[in-house]
């Protein structure tokens, strides 16, 4: 009998939930393809990661590259441990801590956050002993970065603060600036604009007198983000212009993409999503990596949805899905499926609920931060509310509220509260013709 390709969901079902199998799991997704037989079927529009096809032969062909990648990581990590031992023998504990940080970075790069966290933790512990404690500060900042990636915002804040204190005591100016930036980024996620702004400003003050640098444009653009999110759009534009000038002075290609992207976001905030499109297209043209392209596409999709250009939004989000799958950007996929859910919602397609279910499943299986799952529940609730399923929508909103409250992310919390209030108002108005049960 000829082998038949299987659906990704069937193949994934074979794999036990082991960290060591994550590269294989990722390879399986990357090697998957759309089911061409469904290209024109009505169900083709509802294709998700799970319904893509894969086969053993294709996976087998990908194995040498996967194994080589794993070997490279192991060689790097073990090599850094040897370096740490050599430093220990030489009595250089700071260098030992530095090697452990490098080992953690190799793990973090591979998406192995738990392993990275342990190396960083060990580095911070070892780095506390010598007189030069800058590596302790670096270890704490790396720990904070991992905590933020996992959605543990309170812990990330604490670690950045501790990292800043160490850097300050060590007169490590760059360490202090990076800690300020990290703190600001976490505070932005929590919607604490004034505190975030103060943190970025502090970083900027520390850089005063230095020439243009990557850190400088990042802080300037971060200040633009805060001003935009706080609704001070003219100020946001001024900061963005400063960031653009810094980027041009140092000729930073990634910075150029970032600035164009931010320009698009600013135009959306000004209420003109159509005007954002040229900026996003320019950002896409200058994007140097799949991660950058994906980041811009997310915003382009949002602006198209805002303009109700549903067909174009769907095409852009499918392009984003392809990039995310091909390059293993799994964390982007929940957004992809929420956006496709939004497309289905705009078209009044009830079967679109499959996209939210796929996003939730991805959050569970790929152990993405709780924030992602909560955001999905929030949007899923909107989809269900529109179908008249108020009870189900309210249950989802309650779940989302619990997560956002625990993370202290008030912008999302405010969205949930508003959605709950609206649902209750509708129920109270007596229009329960579509109510279930």
């Amino acid at each position: 009998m000829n082998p038949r390709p299987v659906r990704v969901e069937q193949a994934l079902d074979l794999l036990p939930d082991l960290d060591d199998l994550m590269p294989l799991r990722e390879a399986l997704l990357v090697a998957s393809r759309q089911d061409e037989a469904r290209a024109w079927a009505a169900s083709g529009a509802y294709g998700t990661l799970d319904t893509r096809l894969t086969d053993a032969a294709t996976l087998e062909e990908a194995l040498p590259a996967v194994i080589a990648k794993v070997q490279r990581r192991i060689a790097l990590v073990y090599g850094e441990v040897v370096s740490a031992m050599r430093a220990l023998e030489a009595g250089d504990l700071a260098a030992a801590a530095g090697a452990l940080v490098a080992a953690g970075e190799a793990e973090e790069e591979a998406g192995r956050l738990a392993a990275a966290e342990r190396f960083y933790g060990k580095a911070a512990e070892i780095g506390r002993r010598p007189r030069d404690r800058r590596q302790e500060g670096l270890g704490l900042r790396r720990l904070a970065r991992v905590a933020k990636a996992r959605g543990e915002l309170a812990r990330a804040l604490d670690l950045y603060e501790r990292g800043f204190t160490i850097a300050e005591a060590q007169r490590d100016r760059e360490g202090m600036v990076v800690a300020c930036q990290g703190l600001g980024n976490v505070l932005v996620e929590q919607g604490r604009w004034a505190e975030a702004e103060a943190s970025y400003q502090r970083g900027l003050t520390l850089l005063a007198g230095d020439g243009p640098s990557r850190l400088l444009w990042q802080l300037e653009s971060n200040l633009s983000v805060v001003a935009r999110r706080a609704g001070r759009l003219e100020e946001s534009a001024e900061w963005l212009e400063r960031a653009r000038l810094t980027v041009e002075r140092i000729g930073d290609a990634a910075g150029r993409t970032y600035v164009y992207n931010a320009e698009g976001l600013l135009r959306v905030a000004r209420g003109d999503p159509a005007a954002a499109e040229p900026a996003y297209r320019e950002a896409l043209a200058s994007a140097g990596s799949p991660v950058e392209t994906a980041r811009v596409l997310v915003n382009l999709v949002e602006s198209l949805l805002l303009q109700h250009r549903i067909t174009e939004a769907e095409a852009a989000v499918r392009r984003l899905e392809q990039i995310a799958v091909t390059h293993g950007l799994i964390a982007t996929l929940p957004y992809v499926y929420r956006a496709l859910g939004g497309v289905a919602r705009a078209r009044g397609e009830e079967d679109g609920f499959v996209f939210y279910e796929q996003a939730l499943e991805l959050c569970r299986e790929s152990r993405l931060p709780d924030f992602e799952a909560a955001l999905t529940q929030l949007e899923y609730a909107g989809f269900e509310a529109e179908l008249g399923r108020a009870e189900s929508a309210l249950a989802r909103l309650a779940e989302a509220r619990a997560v956002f409250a625990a993370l202290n992310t008030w912008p999302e919390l405010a969205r949930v509260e508003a959605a709950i209030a609206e649902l209750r108002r509708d129920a109270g108005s007596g229009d329960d013709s579509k109510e279930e049960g």
Partner: protein
Amino acid sequence: MTARGVLLIGVDETSAEAVCAAAGACGLGVRASAGLGEGLRSLGEGGWLATFLSLQLEGAELELAERVAAEKGAGALVLLASRPTVQLTMEAVRRGAREVMEVPLAAARVEKLLAGLSGSAEGRIPLPEVVDGGGDAVGSSPQLLEVFKVVARVAPSAATVLVTGESGTGKELVARAIHEASERARGPFVPVNCAAIPEDLLESELFGHERGAFTGAVARKIGRFERASGGTLFLDEIGDMSLVLQAKILRALQEREIERLGGEERIRVDVRVVAATHRDLAALIDAEEFREDLFYRLAVVRLHLSALREREGDMRELALHYSAHFAAEYARPVGYLAESALARLAEHDWPGNVRELRNVLERAVLVATSDTLRADDIQIDRSRGARQTGETLPGYSPKLSMAELEKLHIARVLEAAGGHLGRAAEILGMHRNTVSRKAQEYGLASDGSR
């Protein structure tokens, strides 16, 4: 008013020569204005087919371009720039420019543009009026008319109907037509795509569930069977349903009762079922992947929708219909479909049938730059969903040489094209003679090659 020709404002000498050559080829005159003032005066005379404005001219900014584009007499505004960026192009088009071209100009590109604008190169067909509520049941082929005759006959009965046909032929449209012509028309029409919904979710979608029936059952849910009570339930892509669910559907059809997941109550449902599939159910029955008893329960009346390529004349009618529909939906000033565009559409095999044609025309309307959809606006993705004669093959091995890969691919394309060399050549983007020669070289040729 007859167009005067082409107006040039601030265009450099080399570019002006290119425009003159292109305009000459289209039988158009050219007037060149060196300065902005003179150019604006000429513009005021109106009636230009196209205006070329150089952004290198002092004082010529996008704001000016926007003003020129708004002038009725300017015709199509073409901006000339030394290094047009994506941002400039997008912004210029947003402000009303038809094109942004890089200087020095390529005469061929200008000629193509002017030929398109003047309509000198081809004939065009006016689009029909868009009728509100007209629906998408468009066509006059004998096959389509026969289907709708049967729809009219069977709709008033309570019989279940099985609609078959390739993907994209409009099976849901037929199901809706049956519903609307039936006595249940005032009741709900509830579609469910059985292949779109994962197996573990489909059962609760169809039959509903009680709160807490399983993890994630946060509230009671009314299933689609229950919601369709008094109306029609359309089970699309039923051939993709698992045997377990097929048994449950059969039971629901026989007993006219369902039970929500996690519930104990039997609930009566008064539902007419219309099912559809693009798969060969007889073959699935032979392979024991589809229940024969369910097949006979569903296929009391059978309707088959022909593929678009078999429906003489329908493609043209549908193309005009969708062009008009999307022009109205997106408020685009498209009023004609060029014969060349129709010819391009006619060359395609339409594996995705009406759904594919609809998508192609939607995109064409969105990208069109004049009042006429032209061949250049028609973009067909030939790689997508080509008709398949067998199971989807796994990806090509990277261990193959180019020659081996070419042999394999030509063999597959020839198979898909039914041995038709001309059709295979079209898919492969090669000359027919090249395909014939390569087929001989690789030992793929058969006497039956056409």
